[in-house]
């Protein structure tokens, strides 16, 4: 186990390094214009551009530029030249809202994904299954921000069921917190719930043909017990794997669209505003931290998995 953890962590550090290099390349090397000009933002004076060139070392070699950029991002002295605000502070400020949104949505998509997937598999081919399939496919095909916009219009304006959103801290008023987050939670959860219900359905249908299920039936177990204890259990493994990846991806970027529509003051809204102004320093930091979060979270999930499942830590692929 210790060997697996060390190996996995070394791999993680390498990937983090490569990712930081890619982020550097994306923002400062690949584009065809003066990086100082782009970082300075829309209302740049020649003086500001000259200052940035010097401060970021754009007249120096690429490795030096890379080190300067990383130092700026990680030391918390990165500022946006558009808004004159410290980028890292703004990001930290947005974290509670982003996590509130993502965790709530994750609970919803797991619950409904599993429920609908289970129903679909148990009633395979019948009306319930077909209706759920249509719902799932529609959910997978609809842009998140479109669902969010329609919800916003229907349920905060046409029928005033929920408050027009902004974020209320949980510590301030838990009821208002939830009330403001219900629509964003649902919007963000729909796509993944649809996707998971499809995955679970097909896994369960496969599992139903396995020998151990026939054995369970032969033992005289009730259909319900066969489904929940034998079929469902094994079929959930890929869902749990996907969950790790998807949750990380939603925190590390997927929430941007939902936050910007519901004006939830999280990291995503901050990023969305920066994109609208083509204000690069915040986007650099959000990209880097987002990708870092994904990699670190996945490494932790893997380690947790290896702890649970010896096949993984011994290096044989689990089937």
């Amino acid at each position: 186990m210790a060997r697996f953890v060390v190996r996995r962590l070394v791999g993680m550090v390498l990937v983090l390094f490569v990712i930081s290099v890619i982020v550097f390349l994306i923002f400062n090397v690949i584009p065809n214009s003066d990086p100082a000009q782009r970082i300075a933002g829309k209302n740049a004076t020649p003086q500001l551009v000259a200052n940035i060139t010097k401060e970021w070392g754009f007249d120096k070699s690429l490795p030096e530029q890379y080190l300067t950029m990383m130092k700026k991002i990680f030391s918390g002295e990165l500022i946006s030249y558009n808004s004159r605000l410290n980028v890292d502070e703004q990001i930290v400020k947005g974290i509670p809202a982003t996590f509130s949104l993502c965790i709530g949505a994750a609970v919803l998509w797991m619950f409904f994904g599993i429920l609908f997937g289970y129903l679909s598999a148990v009633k395979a081919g019948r009306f319930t299954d077909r209706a759920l399939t249509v719902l799932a496919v529609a959910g997978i095909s609809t842009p998140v921000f479109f669902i969010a916009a329609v919800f916003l219009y229907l349920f905060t304006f046409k029928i005033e069921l929920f408050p027009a959103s902004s974020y209320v801290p949980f510590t301030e008023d838990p009821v208002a917190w939830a009330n403001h987050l219900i629509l964003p939670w649902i919007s963000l959860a729909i796509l993944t719930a649809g996707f998971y219900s499809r995955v679970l359905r097909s896994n369960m249908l496969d599992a139903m043909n396995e020998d151990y299920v026939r054995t369970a039936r032969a033992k005289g177990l009730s259909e319900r017990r066969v489904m929940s204890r034998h079929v469902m259990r094994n079929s959930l493994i890929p869902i749990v794997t996907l969950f790790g990846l998807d949750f990380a991806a939603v925190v590390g970027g997927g929430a941007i669209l939902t936050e910007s529509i519901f004006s939830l003051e999280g990291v995503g809204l901050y990023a969305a505003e920066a994109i609208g102004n083509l204000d690069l320093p915040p986007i650099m930091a959000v990209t880097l931290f987002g990708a870092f979060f994904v990699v670190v979270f996945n490494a932790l999930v893997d380690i947790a998995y290896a702890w649970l499942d010896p096949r993984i830590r011994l290096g044989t692929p689990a089937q």
Partner: protein
Amino acid sequence: MAREPQAEPAPAGAGAGDELPPAPRGVSAEGAGPWRLAYRRLLRNRVALAFLALFVLIVAFVLAAPLWSRYVAHTGPNTTHTLETIAVNGKKREVVAPSGVPIGPVWFGAGGKFFLGADGGLGRDEMVRLMYGGRTSLLIGFAAAAITTIFAILLGLLSGYYRGWVDAVIARMLDVIWAFPVLLLGIALGTALAVGGLKIGPIEISGSSLWIPILIIGFVYVPYMARPIRGEILALREKEFVEAAVAQGAGPLRIMFAELLPNLASTIIVFFTINVANSMLLEAALSFLGAGVQPPNSSWGTMISGGISIIYTSPLLTIIPGLMITLTVLSVNVFGDGLRDALDPRSKVRLEARLGQAEAEGTAI
């Protein structure tokens, strides 16, 4: 856990030695080759065909943009009509009311002008914009999917054929790109390239060119397709027909493109439809945020972005382009799924793999 992608060979001509899957047209009815069988299975799938018809309708709709613009609406997608009035069923109405609210759908009340009303502040004809915006969205969807497909095939072939260090390098690169959330990578590239554009050798692309979102979206999905293709090639590489080709003295190019590639035909076709759907969704998301299609071009995504700011007074400006995206992606998804069923009924990769995540590995360094 689906660790390695299905090692299952593609149905078409698998293990058929030096015999390649015949071209669809060259098959006689009695022979009923794999392509012919797939075609028959597809014809029996009514739902898939209905959604194909819907997709064709949408394409026809956006292709008709210049005609509608010229003969019916008499205006272009970027022509503003802010201070003008039009006669709707004989009554004079302002295109944009003094309060800033644009006119809603007037259908044929003004002879086809402002069929769906005008868009926000600038008073542009929404119907004309919808048709031209759809061209952009569909163009990006297909062009980006083509780029993804070409790169994924090349990388998958190189990786799977040469194995060894070539494979190690390519596989690690794909893993790193795969670690980025797709949206985040698109945003990073989109904002970085929107200002000054891109310069690759002698080719210079301006920041507002449609090529920028096409290249970006094409690029970010490469790992999602290249990884499964690499897996399939690695499995096929071990088969006797490759050995036979080597024994005949076939070079690497011939083995890759004439022996291995044809076996992947059905995988590639199905992935292409998935790529089109995903590319269109990503384009819409990026454009919505301002990191995709840049003015003066517009797409369904930028139209929604403009509509959201006035959603309370003119909800249709958000709903109409949103429905168009949804219907298009839906039709591609359902048809693609039918295609998959027809080409490879045994395969497990279906709609569930749409987001490219079913190939997820537990240990994704």
